[in-house]
């Protein structure tokens, strides 16, 4: 398929998103100990939503276009359609059996290759990603893309202060150990967004209808521009998963406190009594402090 049309003026922004299983609803098969994917809802990696919202804010302010890019199985189309419903302009899915089993090295290779194709007519100004995914938790793919495309990388960004299109400069705030860094970078660059930096908008009726109707751009490895498939999927992935296991349940015990009557004070007293019964020292310390 052809690449989606790129803007003739304004920013060309690409947001890389990942479809992940909803970790709140994951179940582990009690016999095989593997994750039961069947019936588990999938969501857009929650950190990626902060990247998408920030990208759309820049678009709304400076003009241009936001494209969401995702590597995954064909069902990842749901995540892209969802992103369109939230207000993204274009969506590209790169999907190929040969991508299966990709670790972060192979994933960043595939995404970087597709990004190169997306920037063929009009260079990509900013690539956004979330700070990490909730299933892999590595935070490596964003920096991996930046390093392959030789983009300045601005990780753990909490806010974008200014963007000067004329000069091709951006100023961001980055969370660092012990404080906040204010960084200025040349465009193009790659930004990984920190959680809580904004709140994802709710798309309009028109966005939702457009998303439901949209024909997505779907690329195979070749179409995405991959020349060496040995760099993709399992073969391009040096990471070896040694073992997958469900951690055994912790042995903290929960206790249900039943109280006669429904007064908040009675319930509070019952709970406090229980805590003090288990922690006599706490009770002694507290009464000493109060007296």
């Amino acid at each position: 398929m052809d690449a989606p049309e790129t803007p003739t003026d304004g920013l060309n922004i690409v947001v890389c998103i990942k479809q992940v299983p909803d970790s709140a609803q994951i179940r582990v098969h009690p016999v095989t100990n593997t994750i039961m994917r069947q019936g588990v809802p999938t969501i857009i990696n929650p950190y990626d939503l902060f990247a998408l919202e920030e990208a759309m804010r820049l678009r709304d302010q400076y003009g241009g276009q936001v494209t969401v890019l995702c590597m995954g199985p064909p069902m990842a189309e749901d995540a892209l359609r969802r992103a369109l419903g939230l207000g993204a302009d274009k969506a590209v899915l790169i999907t190929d059996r040969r991508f299966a089993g990709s670790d972060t090295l192979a994933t960043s290779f595939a995404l970087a290759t597709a990004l190169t194709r997306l920037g063929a007519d009009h260079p990509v100004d900013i690539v956004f990603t979330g700070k990490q995914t909730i299933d892999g938790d590595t935070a490596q793919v964003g920096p991996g893309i930046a390093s392959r495309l030789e983009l300045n990388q601005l990780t753990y960004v909490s806010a974008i202060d200014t963007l000067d299109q004329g000069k091709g400069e951006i100023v961001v705030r980055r969370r660092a150990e012990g404080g906040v860094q204010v960084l200025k970078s040349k465009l193009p660059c790659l930004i990984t967004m920190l959680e809580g930096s904004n709140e994802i908008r709710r798309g309009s009726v028109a966005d939702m209808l457009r998303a439901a109707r949209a024909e997505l751009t779907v690329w195979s490895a070749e179409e995405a521009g991959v020349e060496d498939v040995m760099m993709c999927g399992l073969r391009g992935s040096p990471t070896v998963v040694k073992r997958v296991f469900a951690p055994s349940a912790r042995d903290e015990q929960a206790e249900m406190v039943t109280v006669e009557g429904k007064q908040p004070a009675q319930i509070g007293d019952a709970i406090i009594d229980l805590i003090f019964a288990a922690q006599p020292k706490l009770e002694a310390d507290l009464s000493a402090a109060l007296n």
Partner: protein
Amino acid sequence: MSEHFDAIVVGAGPSGNAAAYTMAKAGLNVLQIDRGEYPGSKNVQGAILYADALERIIPDFREHAPLERHVVEQRMWLLDEKSHTGAHYRSDDFNEDKPNRYTILRAQFDKWFSRQVRAAGALLITETTVTNLVKDDAGRVIGVETDREGGPIYADVVVLGEGVNALVGQNAGLRPELKPQHVALAVKETHFLPEQTVRDRFNLAGEDDGVVIEVVGSVSSGMVGTGFLYTNKESISIGVGCLISDFAETCIPPYELLDNFKSHPSVAPLLKGSEMKEYVAHLIPEGGYNAIPRLTGDGWVIIGDAGQFVNAVHREGSNLAMTTGRLAGESIVQLKAERKPITEANLKLYRDKLADSFVMKDLKKYRRIPALLERNKQLFTAYPKAMSQALQMFLRVDGTDKRSKESAMMRSVKRARGSWLGVATDMFKLMRAWR
């Protein structure tokens, strides 16, 4: 910019999907709106799929729908505190090419059904709540308002498959508020068990064979209600539901009811060693024929649970939902083809199709049952107990002669209801309501 569709379907449950599929397949421009995160994420059922209703919509569904087990055995239990009296029916005839009933997991089934609807050409938007209906000056419904920006969406007809708690219809003044005695609250848990364990415990030869158990008696703690236990591929669905009005009166928490059911000596061994995977609760419209609201108007039509289309006696609901959805869809397609407006008068077509179908015939047949059960709760307590006591006396060998045992059994039935007149009245009422 506002859009106009041939039809807007509110809800992506069995009724909404049936209606949207039927209309889209016939070439209508259909928009379906669901408030769930994904289509079906808010849907809850026991769940048994009755093949016939779906087969009339998607004839080859068995080839690709996610089905758990086909039902080869039905058990009906009268539950007492420590015992159950059961009637079991199993037949190899149920192992047919096209089985009649299946257990399903709704989360998976509904996603599949929704994919068929979209493949048929309907447009679906989720995470969008229809907040109200838009009417023109003449009071005709011409579209919907949603909780998203961008104004109303218009259509020639709005099909309300919004489910039991039908707030859209209620807000728009099309129907009254639900009455507590017309709605049951059901709670359900899904318990994981290895596939082989399920087959061993329920004596299932074929790998897709399944058993369902429907339960009345002490399971409802004196309220109007029933319990159920269904076998899925590698899990068991177990639940209990009672009228909201009874819950309000007794103040019994629903989870307590389910806990008691699960620990009943007849049930606990079936669940032993299982791991609870899901806990859900949902409302079921059980008011029957007399609780059915007005179903049609200018530019609107009601289908599924929103129309109280549940046969509580036979535990049927999703098949009524699919059938009413299909009939509404077919009626709209026909009116469109004849270039007739979708008005109250022209929607007589839908009302006639309904009256002609098993849906209305069955609900009408049992129209006296809901009120009868509500006023005769002894049916749920006295008889299961009496039955249990009588049978125990009959089976226990303890040196008492049989004639004395028989009189004692009769006395225990009489005692359970207070008098023979009470028993006779109950039987008469039941037979009259059943007719």
